[in-house]
């Protein structure tokens, strides 16, 4: 069906690249509105304390200060999906991010200075920073909204899942291994720091927000709830975003605070984080402790997995608390496994709260799972590549959780990286001397066709063609740098025969664009792409009618190419813009416009978390080679072989960009990134001490797309965005363990950790 595609599958640069490379893209960080004020937030000095008093008198009087607000000045609802997060804290603070007061002033300097004039009297408390401590019987309740839920324990969210007969599977197991893994807190470090500009119009009582949210319609609803407003009185405009990676899935207190300052002053207000504030107050990946027991029978078939996860929720709940949705998938359905039992707890502590981050729990789950596979293979004396291939998922499989693998490239991905890395030929890697070499494997499974976790997983599109032959796509989906605009434009170009420079994508205004859930779950190309194809089909019916009439032929004879509609039979053609003009201007008159709403035919999971939650599933495998310097503990990631089931390559250039960027984030997770906390305080809030990787650190990435052509995806494509970083840390850890013949149960594998392990020659 895809034989002669003119646009799809070709390496077109991003259609919005020119504005980004000339400095003309206006990011939220660049916005200036007339009469705009600058907001700043006073955060607590202690991670856990009672607030005895707040004195804002000196700050309010300082010249240039227009408004100072505390919890006493506002009438608002809590935020977060559990509604357990007060926007401004009253009476107590529970983590180092906590917002106590906010200032709007004529300049950012004045606003920041005014913060220093606010006097807060605290009664400092000990605080609880360890989730196991927080669950003890005598532990005080950290978040009072947890009262009367879960027996008055510090529990935010609990999940249980199981399939298969655990006891029977244990009985047939030849090996059974248990481990505890400890995964760190890392953060997105988007280069563009968090920002918002709010403009409340006092006369018509409408609120305009320039926000970086990646879920504008959910955000509109949430902020309306927080501010006790009507959602339709709030318009969200999404300026260009300086990186997302999941960090803009939740709404955070600074956003309604900025709106409140604007409501109070009737002037536009902007809040822009400094890098330090970004480190302290923007979300993190879920840190967790994973207890896992796995088994395999004597021929290496996986038998069961038993998992118990302790997640440090921090003081409030974010979407990140629902990462077990994704982790359950990995544990229950990545490789075939007879039985699985999964439990997780998200526990309130006085640490900062974690949000969602590309991969959404999957890097953690995959790390534990893939480490265990190596351990089992070792014990059974089975080759670590062979055991993976043997247990790989297959097309047609329905997993214990009820996921339907209508297409499945898992095995092909594994076989590709095994052969491309020449693993079978390089059995004798250097395991002696200063520099030791190792190779590690890991796979991953992730949703590839959206995820039905809200009432709708749909996306709307309106498409129109103007009388000059230009096409405008108004899509519910959002662009956060991932290239969705370009992919949509390519689809329209392909179907309508319009060149890319004549296609515009409108996607940043809730007053204009149709409903969409938002950017998450690697869903945009799949869901927005299908939605667009639906709209195009309707539009083409209209165009066909007119063109067939003019060309005196029938629909099936029409072909859209290079701005023309051709009749093959008649050997005639007509310009597309002419057809549109004929539609518009000759009676009865009709617009060249069409709308379509696409809802994937996936299902909600039942109460047991079973069901076919996505329209498609993506698979990948990575083989990674490392060199470890045993004198310094430095790990050099040399080669990454990655094969990924992408369904169909829509744009190889953008696809490679997603793969490479994701992998490097995964390498950082494996070897260098960690937010260090001491009693709830962040010790490394800057790029000097929180190491993201640089151009010098990159491995050679060898990418092999696997095309399984999923009939549900646009042109056969599946979601790709999150997958590349998911198996990376697992494969690196496996490679390092292989190189040193040691075991690691913690990330990141810093030189220090490596040296300690070497010195003690025991597992850490």
């Amino acid at each position, binding site marked *: 069906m895809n034989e002669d595609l003119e646009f799809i599958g070709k*390496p077109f*640069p*991003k259609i919005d*690249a*020119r504005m*980004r*490379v*000339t*400095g*003309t*893209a*206006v*990011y939220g*960080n*660049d916005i200036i509105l007339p009469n705009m004020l600058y907001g700043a937030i006073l955060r607590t000095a202690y991670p856990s304390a009672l607030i005895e008093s707040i004195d804002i008198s000196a700050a309010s009087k300082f010249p240039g200060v227009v408004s100072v607000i505390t919890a006493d000045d506002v009438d608002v609802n809590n935020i977060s999906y559990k509604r357990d997060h007060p926007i401004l804290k009253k009476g107590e603070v529970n983590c180092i991010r906590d917002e106590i007061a906010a200032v709007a002033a004529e300049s950012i300097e004045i606003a920041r200075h005014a913060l220093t004039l606010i006097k807060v009297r605290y009664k400092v408390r000990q605080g609880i920073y360890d989730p196991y401590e927080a669950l003890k019987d005598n532990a005080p309740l950290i978040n009072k909204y947890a009262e009367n839920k879960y027996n008055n324990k510090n529990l935010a969210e609990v999940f249980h899942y199981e399939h298969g007969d655990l006891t029977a599977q244990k009985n047939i197991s030849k090996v059974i291994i248990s481990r505890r893994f400890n995964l760190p807190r890392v953060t*997105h*470090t*988007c*280069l*563009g*720091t968090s920002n918002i500009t709010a403009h409340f119009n006092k006369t018509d009582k409408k609120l305009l927000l320039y926000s970086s949210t990646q879920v504008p319609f959910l955000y509109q609803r949430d902020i309306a709830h927080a501010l006790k407003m009507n959602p339709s009185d709030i318009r969200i405009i999404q300026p*260009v*975003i*300086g*990186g*997302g*990676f999941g960090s803009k899935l939740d709404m955070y207190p600074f956003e309604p605070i900025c709106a409140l300052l604007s409501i109070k002053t009737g002037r536009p207000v902007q809040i822009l984080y*400094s*890098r330090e504030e970004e480190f302290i107050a923007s979300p993190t990946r879920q840190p967790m402790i994973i207890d896992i027991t796995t088994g395999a029978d004597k021929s290496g078939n996986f038998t069961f997995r038993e998992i118990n996860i302790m997640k440090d929720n921090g003081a409030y709940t974010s979407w990140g608390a629902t990462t077990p949705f994704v982790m359950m998938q990995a544990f229950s359905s990545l490789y075939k496994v007879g039985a699985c039992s999964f439990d997780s707890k998200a526990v309130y502590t006085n640490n900062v709260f974690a949000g969602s981050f590309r991969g959404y729990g999957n890097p953690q789950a995959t790390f534990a799972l893939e480490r265990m596979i190596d351990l089992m293979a070792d014990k059974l004396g089975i080759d670590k590549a062979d055991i993976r291939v043997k247990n790989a998922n297959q097309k047609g499989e329905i997993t214990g959780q009820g996921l339907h693998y209508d297409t499945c490239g898992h095995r092909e991905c594994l076989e590709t990286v095994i052969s491309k890395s020449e693993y079978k030929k390089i059995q004798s890697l250097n395991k002696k001397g200063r520099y030791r070499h190792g190779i590690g494997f890991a796979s991953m499974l992730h949703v590839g066709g959206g995820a039905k976790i809200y009432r709708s997983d749909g996306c709307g599109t309106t498409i129109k063609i103007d009388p000059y032959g230009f096409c405008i796509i108004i899509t519910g989906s959002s662009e*956060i*740098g*991932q*290239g969705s605009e370009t992919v949509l434009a390519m689809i329209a170009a392909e179907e309508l025969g319009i060149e890319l420079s004549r296609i515009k994508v409108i996607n940043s205004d809730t007053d204009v664009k149709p409903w969409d859930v938002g950017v998450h779950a690697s869903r945009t190309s799949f869901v927005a792409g299908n939605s667009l194809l639906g709209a195009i089909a309707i539009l083409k019916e209209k165009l066909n009618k007119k063109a067939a009439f003019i060309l005196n032929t029938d629909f099936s004879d029409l072909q859209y190419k290079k701005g023309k509609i051709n009749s093959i039979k008649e050997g005639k053609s007509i310009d597309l813009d002419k057809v549109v003009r004929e539609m518009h201007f000759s009676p009865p008159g009709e617009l060249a416009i069409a709308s379509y709403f696409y809802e994937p035919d996936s299902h909600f999971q039942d109460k047991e978390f079973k069901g076919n939650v996505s329209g498609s599933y993506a698979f990948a495998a990575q083989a990674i080679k490392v060199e470890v310097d045993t004198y310094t503990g430095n790990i050099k990631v040399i080669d990454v072989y990655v094969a990924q089931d992408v369904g169909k390559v829509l744009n190889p*250039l*953008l696809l*490679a*960009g997603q*793969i*490479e*960027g*994701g*992998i*490097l*984030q995964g390498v950082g997770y494996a070897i260098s990134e960690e937010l260090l906390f001491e009693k709830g305080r962040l010790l490394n809030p*800057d*790029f*000097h001490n929180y190491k*993201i990787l*640089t*151009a*010098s650190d*990159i491995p050679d*990435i060898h990418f092999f797309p696997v095309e399984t052509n999923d009939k549900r995806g646009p042109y056969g494509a599946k979601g790709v965005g999150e997958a590349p970083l998911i198996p990376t840390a697992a494969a690196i850890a496996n490679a390092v363990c292989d190189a040193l013949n040691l075991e690691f149960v913690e990330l990141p594998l810093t030189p220090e950790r490596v040296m300690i392990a070497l010195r003690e020659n025991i597992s850490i």
Partner: protein
Amino acid sequence: MMKGNRNRKEKQLVRISFSLNGQKVEAEIKSSTILLDLIRDVFSLKGTKGACREGECGSCTVLLNDVPVNSCLFPAINANGKNITTIEGLTKSDGSLDEVQEAIVQNGASQCGFCTSGVALAIKGLKYHYKKLNNSKKINAVLTPNRKDIKKWLEGNLCRCTGYVKIIDAAEKALINE
């Protein structure tokens, strides 16, 4: 007393003049003014970013007499009499792209784009650097940086989106274009 002194000194304005993207400009600044703020806030050129403001990320890179500097740490007063090029000045006056920008576009080296201005100017600076080396009489062979040199040169430019591969590809293409 100390504070008073400092305030008075802070208030004292200094007049500087320099060339900004090929145009002679003047500004009255405090001695403490940072070049990045002068560019963004006074001259309203928002293409230069300030992602960390502590010399760690390179998003604020501009060219000072063809040499890349972190404008977030650079005292504006030291720009007096110099040539400053920002991303807006890299773009040609008719709006067409410099070869470095074109290479970034064609090689997919910009995703969210927040690092891109800094990256583009750093690459441009590398070009100038090699031009200078090759023009200096001491060397007869033509030097061009290899991939490793490019990586080393770009170490100060953080990018969270691309994984750098495409950025290095773009730099290679732009440099070969000589």
